[in-house]
């Protein structure tokens, strides 16, 4: 069935409001009325049929097995729901799919797969019952909307319309704007996208404008009959049918082709809207094709100029990232993401490719974790199609896939994934014969990639070409060929190009100079998506300057703002969390007194120089045992005596940690300073991890290496990492009485696995006795206490 095949499509109005009118209470599950009170449900549907609605929405909004208890019940309720709509005389019946009611990871605890499975059950039931289309509606979470949309597309042939609901600030409760929703969901293959619920028709008009601007598919609106006016008791909606129909009528003129009502609307609202539709023909919308990438909170459009892709989340040549990936302890990587964002990156490349790890699993977990700490859209970078598949699946937005190339095998593996997930895709100009020397031959491969992408239904604007940078010191002629290829692809094919610049200078001194010069030239040839290290001031200077020369930085405002009080000095910016040490005021002498004072006063600015100074005359272990540990002990004593409160102890601990970082960096990879590894996790189902984070920081400052698995950690992962990393002390936290049982389960699994480790536990609802009950070896009443346990177990 085509969308809007007879011009406009009119949906029905509110079910809940009508049920309340018929005496139903607001609590409970209204979907169960399909079984217990079918006549009432059918009569509401019939009123909407009589009002002229083309589509009747079955009473299945919350009919998932999380709420109803079992898949059989889901089937029963949905089957009855679709039947009742049909019996009421519906021309078409929509299977209604609302939110699951749970929040997805990373902010919540439900996994993408769990949400998908709930929707899959509903879709199978709805298709079997004979629904004509699916309506995914009232979504706040873009990822949940995606789960529902994919569940429909992968388990049925039903057309699927998706609407999200926005608050007065123009965002969903999770921060998604109408533009982001429209761009992402149309790329994912929704048959219509739009807005429902939210507010009244007047209030949502600007949202509808945004959706019309960014959607490449028909647009649907289902507003409320105004704002709920419910502070004192019953909810009252004040927009009259006349006002409603007039306001929605204006949206029809603006390009909306599918409309209906949400909360507070009645058959009369729908009847008048029918009249509005009957008096019009749909307007022909101008659909703009633009290169767009999104996360749930940010839209980046590459048509307006350069968008910088941060390259640093990649284990190649980076020891700390390798370690983090092996241990599944992502803090370091998440910090790299935030640092790159702060340095001006607009997208982040994410690569978790290490031969010895489970790349699909690791990349998927990393992509999930990254979405909690950065709003930047991601470029999912892997040579393993399975890893790309799974990571794209859990990504809330429209990502870039890096990459496909001209080889048949690659095209066949990657292009279907880009299509399925509505992703943009980077095409490398190489094929079975390797990388051609000449720009013309690279252009030919680019042509082939974009043609093949088109055959899979991927629009041209979503194909980005990487003309490939080769090392200039081994073949000087080819640098120019790469630049020429960028020019040819830009001009002849009209495609956007991606280019990693760092390889150009391999083997040469002062690499940044070569890279920056190459970058500037690539911009001149048309490059829009450079992949680079945004922490390099020099590259970002080139970017800022080119934006002036290209006209992107209109009026040079951004440039002036950046440089008005700045001179350029080419040093790589310090990593996040490591404040640049001031040159003056660094302590001298043997450092002992200074270091204790620095630590007690929490002066992070001074500690690194003080430790460097101490390392000149002492061995690293000596600095740790004679300077840093006594200093943190002194802070601990003050805390115990009540002279410090917790933030003071922690500020001291963070200061010591910076000192440790200096020692680790100077000791090098072969000579790591560690008193042993401790695994920390907040157990499955619990997301209160602040206590665990405090423990972690403190333990780090006693010289222990922490493997932090984060929060809501499945027991299996704790066991797997404990065994693989030969962990001898595991610390678990839980805050709620309801999640302590997950703690017991984790300990049980650890014991059953034969892992040779001790377990300490902590959390607000635990005590000595309770800790024994869950099978722990140690109860820790606070962070200081955990350090005592660590000393006992690991020395």
């Amino acid at each position, binding site marked *: 069935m085509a969308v809007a095949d007879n011009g406009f499509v009119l949906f029905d109005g509110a079910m809940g409001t009508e049920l309340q009118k018929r005496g139903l*209470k*607001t*609590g*409970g599950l209204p979907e169960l009325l399909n079984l217990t009170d079918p006549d009432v449900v059918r009569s509401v549907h019939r009123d909407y049929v009589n009002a002229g609605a083309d589509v009747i929405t079955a009473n299945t909004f919350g009919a998932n097995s999380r709420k109803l208890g079992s898949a059989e019940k889901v089937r029963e309720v949905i089957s009855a729901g679709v039947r009742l709509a049909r019996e009421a005389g519906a021309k078409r019946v929509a299977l209604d799919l609302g939110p699951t*009611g*749970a*929040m997805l990871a*990373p*902010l*919540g*605890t*439900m996994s993408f797969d769990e949400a998908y499975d709930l929707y899959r059950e509903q879709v199978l039931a709805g298709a079997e019952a004979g629904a004509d289309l699916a309506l995914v509606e*009232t979504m*706040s979470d873009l990822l949940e909307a995606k789960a529902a949309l994919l569940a429909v597309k992968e388990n049925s042939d039903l057309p699927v319309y998706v609407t999200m*609901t926005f*608050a007065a*600030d123009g965002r969903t*409760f*999770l*921060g998604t704007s109408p533009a982001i929703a429209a761009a992402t969901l149309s790329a994912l293959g929704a048959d219509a996208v739009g807005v429902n*619920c939210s507010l009244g028709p007047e209030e949502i008009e600007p949202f509808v404008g945004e959706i019309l601007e960014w959607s490449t598919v028909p647009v649907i609106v289902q507003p409320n009959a105004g704002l*709920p006016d*419910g*502070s*004192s*008791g*019953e909810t009252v909606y004040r927009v009259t049918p006349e006002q409603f129909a007039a306001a929605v009528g204006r949206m029809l003129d603006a390009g909306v082709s599918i409309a209906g009502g949400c909360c507070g609307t009645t058959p009369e609202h729908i009847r008048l809207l029918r009249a509005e539709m009957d008096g019009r023909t749909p307007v022909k919308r101008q659909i703009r094709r633009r290169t767009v990438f999104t996360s749930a909170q940010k839209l980046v459009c590459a048509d307006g100029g350069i968008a910088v892709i941060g390259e640093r989340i990649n284990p190649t040549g980076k020891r700390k990232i390798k370690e983090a990936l092996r241990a599944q302890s992502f803090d370091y990587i*998440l910090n790299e993401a*935030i640092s790159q964002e702060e340095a001006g990156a607009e997208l982040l490349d994410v690569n978790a490719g290490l031969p010895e790890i489970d790349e699909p699993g690791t990349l998927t977990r990393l992509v999930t974790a990254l979405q*909690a*700490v*950065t709003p930047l859209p991601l470029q999912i970078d892997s040579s393993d199609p399975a890893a790309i598949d799974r990571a794209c699946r859990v990504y809330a937005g429209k990502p870039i896939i890096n990459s496909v190339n001209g080889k048949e095998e690659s095209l066949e593996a990657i292009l279907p994934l880009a299509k399925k997930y509505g992703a943009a895709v980077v095409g490398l100009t190489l094929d079975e014969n390797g990388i051609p020397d000449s720009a013309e031959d690279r252009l030919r491969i680019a042509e082939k990639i974009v043609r093949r992408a088109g055959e899979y239904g991927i629009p041209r604007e979503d194909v980005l070409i990487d003309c490939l940078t080769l090392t200039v010191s081994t073949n000087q002629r080819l640098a120019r060929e790469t630049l020429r290829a960028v020019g040819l692809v830009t001009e002849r094919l009209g495609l956007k190009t991606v280019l990693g610049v760092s390889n150009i200078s391999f083997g040469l001194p002062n690499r940044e100079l070569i890279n920056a010069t190459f970058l500037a030239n690539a911009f001149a040839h048309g490059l829009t998506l450079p992949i680079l290290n945004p922490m390099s001031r020099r590259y970002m200077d080139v970017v800022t300057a080119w934006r002036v020369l290209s006209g992107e930085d209109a009026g040079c405002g951004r440039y002036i703002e950046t440089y008005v009080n700045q001179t350029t000095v080419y040093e790589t910016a310090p990593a996040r*969390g490591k404040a640049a040490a001031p040159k003056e005021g660094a302590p001298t002498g043997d450092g002992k007194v200074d270091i204790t004072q620095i630590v007690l*006063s*929490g002066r992070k600015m001074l500690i690194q120089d003080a430790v460097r100074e101490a390392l000149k005359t002492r061995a690293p272990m000596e600095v740790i045992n004679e300077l840093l540990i006594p200093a943190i002990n002194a802070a601990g004593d003050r805390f115990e005596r*009540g002279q*410090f*409160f*917790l*933030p*003071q102890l*922690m*500020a001291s601990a*963070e200061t010591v940690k910076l000192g440790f970082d200096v020692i680790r960096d100077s000791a090098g990879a072969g000579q790591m300073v560690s008193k042993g590894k401790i695994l920390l996790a907040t157990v499955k*189902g*619990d*997301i*209160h991890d*602040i206590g665990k*984070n*405090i423990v*972690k*920081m403190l333990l780090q400052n006693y010289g222990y290496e922490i493997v932090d698995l984060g929060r809501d950690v499945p027991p299996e992962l704790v066991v797997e990492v404990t065994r693989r990393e030969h962990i001898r002390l595991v610390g678990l936290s839980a805050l*709620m*009485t*309801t999640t302590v049982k997950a703690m017991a389960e984790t300990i049980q699994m650890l014991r059953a696995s034969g892992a040779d480790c001790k377990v300490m536990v902590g959390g*607000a*609802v*635990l*005590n000595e006795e309770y800790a024994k009950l869950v099978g722990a070896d140690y109860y820790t009443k606070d962070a200081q206490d955990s350090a005592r346990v660590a000393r006992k177990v690991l020395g």
Partner: protein
Amino acid sequence: MPGSEYIVDRSEVLRYLGYRGQEMSPELDALVDRLSERCRVCAKPRYLWRVFDLSCDAEGRPVLEESGVALRGVDIKKHLDGAVKCAVMAATLGFEVEREMMRLGRRSAVEELIFNAACTALIESVSDVCEREAADYARGLGLVTSFRYSPGYGDFPLEQQADVLGAVEARMRIGITLTDSMLMLPKKSVSALMGLYPAESGVKRGGTSCERCENREFCQYRKEGYGCGG
């Protein structure tokens, strides 16, 4: 909901951090101010409340009339003893503070801790505004309200969180969801019930609810004799 009504009370922030008058460095002092401001910027406070008629089911449990929710446990029954109506409120700071807390936690546990305390102070302030609104409404009916009582207090089961939030459509209207273990998300959210009593009934306003709190055994504030102010 004008934002100026809500405050991040510095002395409250410090109290949540366990401050007992220690001498603070200027850096720490500034950090508390900076993170309190950050909290104010990131938070999107939303709240709602609704007054229900109270009735009684066959087992003698109080029932929120318009939603049909029966409230379980001896303690909530005691709390609502003599009440003629019941206000249900829910308040939240939204998800942006959750994200910000996760970002801060990657950089610094101290910043995370202080930000968390600032958020706790703010959600309390938002809840107070909400409570005052409901109390004003009650006054208009010639009624007075009791203090806020939440699922999980005493023997009022945490599992009823779903019923309480459902009664005011908190998910749809202000975005509060529940996990399977009954945690509210966003974490900085509050749900509570307040009885509405005839003014002459002499119901006690304010005071603490320690005796009925399920955390009373473990509560650090209580051990130290301060109380959490709840």
